Structure formats: structure tokens, C-alpha cells
């Protein structure tokens, strides 16, 4: 009887204890300390992100359009882009912001064509304000998306132009006040490939952007592809000796410059991607507004490598990520353990 009481009470005490254990949450600091708390964790850095937009999908998603042949043999690529401006998105864990979107995401879809193709964009404005699509590149004045504003609630416009010049270009809304339309997220990437193509590579898009969530004309968050710190806790997996090609576009507003530093490596850089000859071999480029280019590199050694803005303020507000380089020939040696 006594032992039964002791047993039962032990179970009660033990379960109460384990419940108390469960209530404790923990998180890791910059310097690797594990901190326990009885409350909530405020941690955009290391917590698994539950945000709606997945930067890992966006990273390698290229849209080639609905393809058909014109009578003269030209390839026609048709895209449908819908603008909206009423979406509230969790742009960092726990922080909600009214994003204005092309096809529902920031950045909008990456549009890709080959030099000389005919690009036709069926643009529908389902927003509450006027919007347009303004492409950087060569096209007739009426296709410039500046003076031909497209009205709200279903306004339509068809942009049509020959893809060119070769390179990586931004597109964005060009309705005044311009800054407002851009910083809310109405931008995306437009890639024109050379006819002969580029060497095969693991290709990625990185739009360097930021969000001014308190409207004080200073960014509160920075990122590669919208979500701060995303690629830091979800490293981008690549392989040793494989050519990596990054189409990088700087869409950060308010701050005059941004930059891109790669760890443990250097890259060939092709400004605007218009030349097939790299202009420089470096680990650091500086980008002004809508300045963009193509980076090419390969890793010799497996392991974890940071990439981030060397304007460290930006990296401490989210513009930082990790390449996890795996050696496919040495399966036993995982990248994570290497060099630690």
C-alpha cells in the first residue's frame, strides 16, 4: 500500500517535472551559447522559418513562358503576370508587412528568354492602385511601362518586345510614387540568354532586397531573396568542382550601395551579364540600385561557406547565407564536419 502511494506520487511528481521541462524553450546565440527561457523565443536567426514565401524554391525557378513559333520562325514566349497590393505577408518570423506582388510573390517570377525571342506579357492589374511593368533592356517607348499606367481592379496591358540585350535585368513597377511601389515588392528578374547558351552550371537567382517595415525610409530587414537569414539556417547545397552561376540583382532602396562577399573563394564577375568576358575576378562586388550581374565560381573544398553583404549592418539584419559544399566523390566526408 505504502509502496503504491510512493509509486503513484513519484509518477505524479515525475510527470509534473517533465511538464516543467517541456515548458522550457531554448535558443542559440551568435556565440553559440544555448539559452533557456520559460517564455517565448524572439529569434529570426536560427528558428526554422515558417514564412509563406520559400526562398529555396525561388532560388532555382526560371520561367520560360508558353512557347510557340511565329510564322517567321521566331520563338514567342508568353507570360501572364498579375499585380496585387493587398497581401499581408510574414516577411520575417513574427513580422507582418503589406507586400505588393507580381504573381503573388516578392520578387515576382523570373522571366527567361533567349536573345531575339519575342516576349509577350499579358499584364493584369488586380490591385487597388495603378501599376505597370517596366523592363530594363531595349524596347519601343510604348512598351516602357512608364506613361501607359494600367488602372486598378482588372486593368490590362500587353507588353511585347524582342528579348535583348543578353544579360540579367530587373523589371519593376514604374508608377509614381516610384519608391513606394518598388519598396513594397513590385520587382523581379528578367534574364536574356545568348543564342549559343552559357556553359552548363548550377544556376541561381539572388535578388538583394530589403523592407522598411516602419516607414522611416530606412530598411529594417535585408535579405537575399526576401526572407532575412533564410539561407543561413537553410544552407544552399552545392557540389565541389561544379560551376555555380548566380544572377544577382540589387533591388535595395534607401541605402546607396549593397555588396556581395563570398567566403573561401573568388568569382568571375560579368557586370549586367552583357559580355561573355568577365570584368573581374574577386570576392567582393559593390552594387548600386538595380545594378546587377552574373557571378561564376566553383568550390574546391567541401564545407560550409558564408556569403553576405560586407556592409555588415545589412548582414546583421538578414542579408547573410551559407553554401554547404558537398564532395560527391567522398560520401563519408560530410560537408558539415569538414574543417570544424
Amino acid at each position, binding site marked *: 500500500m505504502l509502496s503504491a502511494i510512493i509509486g503513484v506520487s513519484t509518477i505524479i511528481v515525475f510527470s509534473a517535472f517533465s511538464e516543467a521541462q517541456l515548458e522550457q*524553450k531554448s535558443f542559440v546565440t551568435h556565440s553559440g551559447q544555448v539559452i533557456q527561457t520559460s517564455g517565448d523565443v524572439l529569434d529570426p536567426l536560427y528558428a526554422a522559418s515558417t514564412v509563406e514565401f520559400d526562398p529555396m524554391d525561388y532560388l532555382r525557378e526560371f520561367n520560360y513562358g508558353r512557347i510557340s513559333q511565329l510564322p517567321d520562325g521566331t520563338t514567342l514566349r508568353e507570360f501572364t503576370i498579375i499585380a496585387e497590393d493587398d497581401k499581408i505577408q510574414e516577411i520575417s518570423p513574427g513580422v507582418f508587412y503589406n507586400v505588393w506582388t507580381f504573381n503573388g510573390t516578392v520578387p515576382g517570377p523570373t522571366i527567361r528568354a533567349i536573345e531575339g525571342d519575342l516576349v509577350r506579357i499579358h499584364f493584369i492589374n488586380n490591385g487597388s492602385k495603378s501599376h505597370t511593368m517596366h523592363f530594363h533592356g531595349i524596347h519601343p517607348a510604348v512598351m516602357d511601362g512608364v506613361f501607359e499606367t494600367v488602372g486598378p481592379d482588372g486593368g490590362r496591358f500587353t507588353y511585347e518586345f524582342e528579348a535583348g540585350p543578353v544579360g540579367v535585368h530587373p523589371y519593376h513597377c514604374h508608377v509614381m510614387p516610384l519608391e513606394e511601389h518598388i519598396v513594397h515588392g513590385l520587382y523581379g528578374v528578367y534574364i536574356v540568354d545568348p543564342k549559343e547558351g552559357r556553359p552548363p552550371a548550377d544556376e541561381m537567382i539572388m535578388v538583394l532586397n530589403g523592407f522598411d517595415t516602419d516607414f522611416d525610409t530606412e530598411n529594417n530587414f535585408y535579405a537575399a531573396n526576401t526572407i532575412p537569414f533564410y539561407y543561413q539556417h537553410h544552407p544552399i547545397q552545392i557540389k565541389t568542382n561544379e560551376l555555380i552561376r548566380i544572377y544577382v540583382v540589387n533591388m535595395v532602396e534607401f541605402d546607396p550601395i549593397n555588396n556581395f562577399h563570398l567566403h573561401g573563394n573568388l568569382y568571375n564577375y560579368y557586370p549586367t551579364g552583357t559580355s561573355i568576358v568577365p570584368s573581374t575576378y574577386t570576392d567582393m562586388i559593390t552594387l548600386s540600385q538595380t545594378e546587377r550581374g552574373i557571378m561564376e565560381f566553383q568550390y574546391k573544398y567541401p564545407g560550409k561557406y558564408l556569403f553576405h553583404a560586407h556592409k555588415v549592418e545589412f548582414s546583421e539584419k538578414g542579408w547573410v547565407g551559407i553554401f554547404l559544399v558537398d564532395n560527391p566523390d567522398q560520401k563519408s566526408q560530410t560537408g558539415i564536419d569538414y574543417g570544424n
Partner: protein
Amino acid sequence: MEIKSYNVKTIASGIIPFGFLVIMILYLVGPSSNLLEFGVSLPEITIEKVEFVNSEIHVTVRNTGPIPVKIAMADVNDRIQPAAIEPDKSLERFETALVRIPFSWNKSEPYTIGITLDDGVRFDKFIEAATPAIKSDYQLAGFFAIIGTYVGVIPVMIGLLWLPFIKRIGKNKYNFFLALTVGLLIFLGIDAMLEGFEVSKENLSTNFNGGLLIITIALLSFLGLYYSAEKLTSRTGLTASSKPFAIGLMIAIGIGLHNLGEGLAIGAAIGLGQVALSTFLIVGFALHNTTEGIAIASPLAKTKSPVSKIILLGLIAGAPTILGTWIGGFFYSPYTAIVFLSIGAGAIFQVALVILKWIYQSEQKLVQTSIVSGIGAGMLIMYLTSILV
């Protein structure tokens, strides 16, 4: 029977307007009402306290806005940091929470602590110099007691040593010293209120109406003390010799409350690391507070009071400084600071008025060279010694 119906009518006529008031409020804010749904309710939080503890920064935040908020993020110097919030990140109106930011801060460097809400709005507070938060231990309590003694007790006692001098001087000069006391007290009262306004401005949300809170408490304290002092003096049927002592006691209590506020400020300043307490600051406070001893001594001068009673008055006026440093250093909150400062201000104004009445009773007029110049000199002395602080 008639009396009863009269009572019912009285009560009913008192309650009916309240009933209508309740109905109106229900109509305005009730669930089906959309009359007042214009404008936008903006969330607001106030960072009330920042403490630098062992490799962590502790931030006390309060929801001072009209709607519940969720805390999303913490930063140090505008750089995002992982942090914890206890008890949880959802704050109802006026609820507080503690944000723990693990951060190896550097002593005496300035820091700006930022807290971001779920709508992306950031609130921040600037700390001039990081100073280790005080742990409640006996050694420190002893240190505070010593500071309180130097700043409060000893200067007041030294001031009381002028008592024999004031005893010997003529009537006009004596009136001058009484008026000087009034000047000192008026200055101290204003000083306490200004200090309260400053604390309110720096640490309190405008929601709390800090300024009005200070004025209300000061007035209540003034009225309460004035009322109870009048009751006290009239009931005991004081003799000529005991009335000056009663006034001395009132001055001592008033100054004691003031010194409690002063101690609170010193303790909090050390606790929050806003100032490095220099020897100079202590000297300044000490000089400043010597004048408070004169204020107590003046009304006692024409009577024979035993030394023990005078020392008791000195302790009543000076010792609260020690208590103040303990409260301020170990349990600082802007609310207690404001409440103590305001009570002190009210008490001081009450004492000043009592002395003026006392002079008026013996002189039948207040516009005299000795009195006017005394008040002026008192305020000037206080101003000049306050520069040292």
C-alpha cells in the same frame, strides 16, 4: 415612513444619472456599435527599464498603446539579436514583459536597444553608458547607506549647528532666516516636481499623463498634510513653545520626503548606470542639503528644545535619503520615483505655507525687506548649490 421614501428618492436621484452614463458608454463601445470606428489604432510600447547583467541585457517593456501587441524581435544598436521574452510575447494593454537579450556588452559604452512589433514598427531606447546592474547584496546596501549618510544625514546635522547662531540674532534677522527657509523650500518643491517631470518624460508613456499625475499627487499630498497638520495643532491646544517644534517637525517630515526622492534619484542613477557617482556629486548634494538643516533650525530658534529632539528632527529629515538610495538602487521603477517626488513636493509646499502663516501671525504683514530678501536669498542659495550637483 416618510423619511424612508425620502431616502429612496435621494438614492434613486443619485443613481439614475449614473445609469444613463453606463447606457451611453455601452452604446458607444458595445459590440454592435460602429459609431467610433474611425481612425487607426496604433500599437505602442514603452521601454521602461534596461539592465545590463552578466552577458545579457534585460529590457522591461510595457504595452502603453490602445490595443494588444505582439513582440516580434529585439535588436542591439539596430542589429538583430536572438532573444527571449518572458512570460510571453503577447502583451495586453499595460502588461509588461522582460526581454532577455544575450549580448556580451562592454562596460560604459552607449547602447540603443530596439524592440520590433509584429507590424514591423520598432521602438528604441538609448542608454548613455552600460553599467552592470546592481545585485542586492549587503556590501552594496552598506555602500548606499554610507552615501545616504554623507548626502542626507550629516549635512542636515551640520545645518542644525547654526541653531545657536540663529538664537542670538535680532528679530529682523531672525525673520530673514525664516524667510530664507521658505525660499529654500519653494526651490526644493519646484526642483522635486521638475525632476518628476523629467523621469516621466524619459521613462513613462504619454498614456499615463505623467505631468498630471505629478501635479495631482503633489496637490493631494499638500492638502492632506495641510489638513492633518491643522487638525493636529488645533486639537492639542499647543503652547507657545510647542508650536515651533510642531512646525520644525513638519519641515523635517517634508524635507525627509524630499530627501527620500533625492536618495531614490541617486540610487537609481547608480543602479541604471546613468551617472558615475563622483565624489564631486556627493559634495554637491551635501552642500545643497546643509541648507535643509537651517530650514529646520529657524523655527526652533526662539524656543528651548532639548538637543535629543533636535537630533531626532535631523534624523527624520536626513535618514530617508538612505532608504531612498536602497529603494532606488535595488527596486527602481519610474512610478515609485514619481510618486515619492510628488509627495515630497506637496509636503514641502505645505511646510513653506505654514512658515509664511507663522511669520504673518507674528508680524501681521509679509512685505518686509527681511522677508522678501530672505525668500530671494534662499532660492538663490539653492540654485547656486544645485549647480554643483
